[in-house]
C-alpha cells in the first residue's frame, strides 16, 4: 500500500532547554536580560549556554538541554518505541509532541490528530460517575460529545467496568481507572497515539488487551503509535522501530533488536569498589561477561560468565569458598551459585584472587531486575550485599512467547519442546 509509506510526523531539530534549581530572585533579572536582547535584536543570551543533560554529574551551568537536536520521522501505521534511562528526555519529548510544553528551538510537523495517553486518570473527577468521566476525559482528549456517545458502549465494554459505570470514580481501584482511561484513549481514533508507560498499572490480562489494541490500532486502522516504556518485552513484541535516547540526544534509531542491544550496552555500570571492603578483604571487581564484554542486562537462558576478584588485606587463609546469591527486588534469595555446593575449594597462594564462573544455561528465572550478593568465607564470613544489579529479559524461545506471571506460572522458566498428536 502506498499510504503506509506516508510520513505522518516529522520532528526537526527539536531542542528543549530547562533552567535548573529554583525559580527565585534571579528570575526577573534573567527575564530582563532576555527582554533586552529581544528588543535590541540580539540572540537570547541564555540559549547559547547549557550542557547535555547527564543527571549524575554535577554541571557548571544553570541551564541544561533536556533535549538536543532531536530529528526523526514516523510513517503512517508505524509503532515507534522510545527507550532510554530515567531522565534521558523521553517524557520531555512526549510532552512537546502532545503540545503540553513548547520546544525551545526546532519544529514538529504532522498530519492529523495527536492524542496522548500520558498518565492515567488525568482529568478524572472523583465525584463524577464513570460514564460522566468517559465524556469528560474524551472531551479533554479532543473528542466531541457526539463521537463519544457513538462509541460509549464499546468503550465501556473494552474497559470491563460495566458494573461500576454509574458509580463515582472515587470508588474505583487504580486499576479500574487505568482501564477506563485507556479505553477512552483507545477509541479516540487519533492519527498518532502517544503512550507513556501507562500499562504498568493494569493487571496482566489488561496489559495484554491493551497491547493487542495498540497493535490493532496500527496494523488495521493504519494509525501511528509512539510508545515509551522500560519494559523491553512489550517494546520487542509491539514496536516496528526503535529510538534510544541518551542524555537528551538520539543515541540510536533503527531496528528493534539492534536498538535494545545498543541500549543494554550503554547501560552497563561500573562497580563502585570502595564500598565493598571489610577488615579482612577488599572486593576488586565483580561483573557479568558475555564474549569478554561487561554486561548487566541479558536474556533468560543466555550463557554468561561471572568474573570477580578480591584482595586479602592481611593474612591468607588456608581455604576459601565463594557463594553468589541472586536476590530479587523484595530482598528474597532466588538462587545461589556456590563453590561450596559445587565442592570446589581453593587454597590461595597470593593476596590477589580472581575467580570465574560460567553459567552454562544462564538463569531460568522470571525476567526482571535482580541483585547479586557475594559471600566469601574462610574462617570468617565476608558478606557484601547488592554488589551488582542486573536485568533479565525474556527470551521468547523454548516455548515462552510472553513473560511468565509469578502468580500463575511460578518464577522458573522450564525449557520445553512440545509434541501433541
Amino acid at each position, binding site marked *: 500500500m502506498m499510504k503506509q509509506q506516508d510520513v505522518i510526523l516529522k520532528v526537526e531539530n527539536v531542542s528543549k532547554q*530547562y533552567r535548573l534549581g529554583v525559580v527565585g530572585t534571579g528570575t526577573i533579572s534573567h527575564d530582563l536580560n532576555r527582554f533586552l536582547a529581544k528588543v535590541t535584536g540580539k540572540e537570547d543570551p541564555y540559549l547559547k549556554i547549557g550542557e547535555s543533560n547527564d543527571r549524575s554529574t554535577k554541571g557548571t551551568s544553570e541551564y541544561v538541554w533536556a533535549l538536543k537536536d532531536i530529528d526523526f520521522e514516523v510513517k503512517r501505521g508505524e509503532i515507534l518505541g522510545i527507550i532510554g534511562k530515567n531522565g534521558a528526555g523521553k517524557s520531555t519529548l512526549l510532552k512537546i509532541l502532545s503540545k503540553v510544553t513548547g520546544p525551545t528551538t526546532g519544529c514538529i*510537523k504532522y498530519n492529523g490528530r495527536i492524542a496522548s495517553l500520558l498518565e492515567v486518570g488525568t482529568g478524572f473527577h472523583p465525584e463524577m460517575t464513570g460514564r460522566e468521566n468517559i465524556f469528560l476525559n474524551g*472531551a479533554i482528549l479532543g473528542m466531541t460529545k457526539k463521537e463519544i456517545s457513538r462509541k460509549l458502549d464499546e468503550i465501556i465494554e473494552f474497559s470491563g467496568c460495566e458494573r461500576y459505570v454509574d458509580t463515582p470514580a472515587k470508588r474505583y481501584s487504580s486499576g479500574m481507572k487505568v482501564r477506563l482511561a485507556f479505553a477512552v484513549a483507545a477509541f479516540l481514533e487519533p492519527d498518532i497515539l502517544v503512550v507513556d508507560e501507562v500499562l504498568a498499572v493494569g493487571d496482566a490480562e489488561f496489559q495484554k488487551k491493551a497491547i493487542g489494541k495498540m497493535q490493532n490500532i496500527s496494523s488495521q486502522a493504519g494509525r501511528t503509535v509512539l510508545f515509551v516504556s522500560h519494559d523491553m518485552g512489550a517494546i520487542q513484541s509491539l514496536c516496528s522501530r526503535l529510538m534510544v535516547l541518551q542524555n537528551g540526544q538520539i543515541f540510536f534509531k533503527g531496528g528493534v533488536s539492534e536498538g535494545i542491544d545498543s541500549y543494554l550496552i550503554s547501560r552497563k555500570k561500573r562497580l563502585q569498589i570502595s564500598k565493598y571492603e571489610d577488615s579482612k578483604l577488599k572486593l576488586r571487581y565483580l561483573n557479568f561477561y558475555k564474549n569478554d564484554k561487561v554486561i548487566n542486562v541479558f536474556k533468560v537462558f543466555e550463557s554468561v560468565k561471572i568474573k570477580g576478584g578480591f584482595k586479602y588485606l592481611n593474612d591468607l587463609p588456608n581455604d576459601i569458598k565463594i557463594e553468589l546469591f541472586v536476590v530479587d527486588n523484595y530482598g528474597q534469595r532466588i538462587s545461589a551459585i556456590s563453590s561450596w555446593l559445587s565442592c570446589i575449594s581453593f587454597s590461595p597462594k597470593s593476596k590477589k584472587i580472581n575467580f570465574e564462573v560460567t553459567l552454562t544455561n544462564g538463569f531460568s528465572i522470571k525476567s526482571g531486575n535482580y541483585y547479586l550478593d557475594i559471600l566469601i568465607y574462610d574462617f570468617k564470613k565476608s558478606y557484601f550485599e547488592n554488589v551488582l544489579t542486573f536485568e533479565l529479559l525474556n527470551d521468547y524461545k523454548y516455548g515462552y512467547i510472553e513473560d511468565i506471571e509469578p502468580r500463575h506460572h511460578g518464577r522458573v522458566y522450564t525449557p520445553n519442546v512440545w509434541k501433541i498428536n
Partner: protein
Amino acid sequence: MKKEKWLFNISPKNNTFNLNLKEVWQYRDLLFLFVKRDVITLYKQTILGPLWYLIQPLFTSVIFTLVFNNVAGIKTGGIPPFLFNLAGITTWNYFKECLVATSDTFKKNEQIFGKVYFPRIIMPMSIIISNLLKFAIQLFILICFYLYYVFFTNSVIRPSEFLFLFPLLIVFMGMLGLGLGMIISSMVTKYRDLTFLVSFGIQLLMYISLVVIPLSLFQKKGVEWLVMYNPMGYIIEMARFLLLNQGNVSKFGIAYTVIFSVLCLLFGTVIFNKTEKTFIDTI
C-alpha cells in the same frame, strides 16, 4: 512530491495575536462538560448545599447594613440600606468569584495541563459560565427581597426602564473578571507573590467599588478620584441604577467600562495564550 504539506505545526514561537478561536470552537463540548462538571460537583457531600450561596451574601448584607448604615450613618438615598447593600454585594460577588477562580487557573490545573493539551482558555471560560449559576441563585434571593420591599413596606422602589440591559452588564463584568483573571494567572506561573496580592487586593478593591458606599458620598467628600478609574465601581453603580433606579450613570462611565473590559479581555487572552505554551516549565 506532496509530502511537504503539513496540516499542523509545533514551533517555539507563534503569532502573538493568533488566538486560536477556531480551536476553541472545536473544543466547545469540553467547555460544556467542564461547566457541567462544576455544577454537578458543587454540592456533592455538603449538607446545606446551594444554601451556602444564599447565606454568604445575606449575612454580609446584614453586617454591612448594621456597620455602615446604622453605626456609620451612610445614607442610601431613599433605598432601604439592606437592599442597597444586597444589590451591590450580589453583583460584586460574581466579579469576585470570577476573578479569584480564574486567577488560579494555571496553578490549580497544573496536573491536567501537564498531561494533555486542549486550548487552556477553555478552563477560565468554563469558570465564568459556571459562576453564572451561583450568580443566578444570589440574584434570586435579591429578587425575593426586592419583592418584599415593594409589596410589604412603603418604600418607593422601582427598576429602571433600562432593566433589560442588565444581562449586558453581566457580560461586561464577566469579560472584566476573565481578562483580569487571565492576566493574573499568567503571571502567577512565574511569580507566586501575586496570589497573596489577589486575595487581599480584592478585599480592598471592594471598598472603592461602591459596593457599600455610594458614589454620591465619594463626591461629597471630594475623593471622587478614588473611584473614577475603577471600572468595577461603574459596573456596581450601573447595576444599582438598573435594578433600583438610583445612582448616577455618566456617559464617560459607560464608555470607560466598555473600553476597559474589552481591552482587558483582549490583553488577557493574548498573554494567556503566550503563557500556555511554556508555563509548565516554570510553575
